[in-house]
């Protein structure tokens, strides 16, 4: 355990690093933002980043041992299916999360698959 002063220094260093990455684009010269390259990025990045966040949030899943990522795949399928069907964000999120929690807490798939 660190003494409080050293701990505070570490917390502030991490806060500074985080805020540097969040504020940096706002400090760029505004003419940079009109470059075609930057405009292409601004148009295409939101969709790309959302997809990457979906994948990133599942990064801890191991695909090479039971249940082979099936709880994640099935729950994600339910979220997308529900959302295409009813287009109610809370319903889609609650439904998929409930299914996922039921599967990982009961270990149901592992038993069914004999893992």
């Amino acid at each position, binding site marked *: *355990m*660190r003494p409080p002063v*050293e*701990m505070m*220094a*570490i*917390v*502030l*260093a*991490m*806060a500074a*690093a*985080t805020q*540097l*990455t*969040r*504020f*940096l*684009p*706002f400090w760029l010269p505004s003419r940079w*933002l009109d470059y075609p*390259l930057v405009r*292409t*990025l*601004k148009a*295409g*990045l*939101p*969709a*790309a*980043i*959302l*997809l*990457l*966040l*979906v*994948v*990133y*949030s*599942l*990064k*801890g899943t191991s695909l090479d041992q039971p249940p082979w990522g099936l709880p*994640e795949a099935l*729950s*994600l399928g339910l*979220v*997308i299916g529900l*959302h*295409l069907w009813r287009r109610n*964000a*809370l319903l*889609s*999120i*609650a439904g*998929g*999360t409930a299914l*996922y*929690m039921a*599967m990982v*807490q009961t270990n149901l798939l592992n038993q069914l698959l004999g893992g």
Partner: protein
Amino acid sequence: MHPSVFQTSLPVAFGYVPLGMAFGVLLVGLGYDWWWAPVMGLVIYAGSAQFLAVSLLAAGAGVVDAFVATLLLNLRHVFYGLTVLDRYRALGWGQGYAVFGLTDETFSLLAGEPARERDRRFVLGVTGLNQGWWVAGCAVGALAGGSLPFHTQGLAFSLTALFAVLLVEQWKKQFQPIPAAGALAAAALCWFFLPGKYFLIASICLSSALLVAVPARGGRS
């Protein structure tokens, strides 16, 4: 009618509260006083960086290590700021807090939809409420320590579900095959070859490179 601040932010609560609690439990597990957890949630306010802090503290890392590791981990935020820049500039006062609180989740909630009437109230409301869930989670987890008996295992899947819902919304509005295919290729490549902490920044850089490269070639032909 637009969904309210609370409706927009609610899905984030299902992810931030249990994740914040997990962080609080880990931090007091290292022997720190409980109030460090909400303080870090208030001052650092970056989920993945705070989990990184737990491993850094456990490993005895110093101030410079912490700064560099956090900078690398959070570099992806540069792309978030770039995307919401015009909208945030138009907010006027309060812009600083909106940028301060630009987490993965807050970005994903706000990036997909255009500015609305009373946008400042909406953006600041969603940003503030999201941070509120997070800080509350950190505090409760740290106060309860390891003694929480309930079964939250799997609850953090709600953040995956939130990202997926926002992605579906984005695609319904306008499906862009090139960014999607590029991001998918980048994700697959980084999934198999990179450890988790570099996944986002590497795959975002790769997707950006593909975004810039592919239309440019199409434009010439």
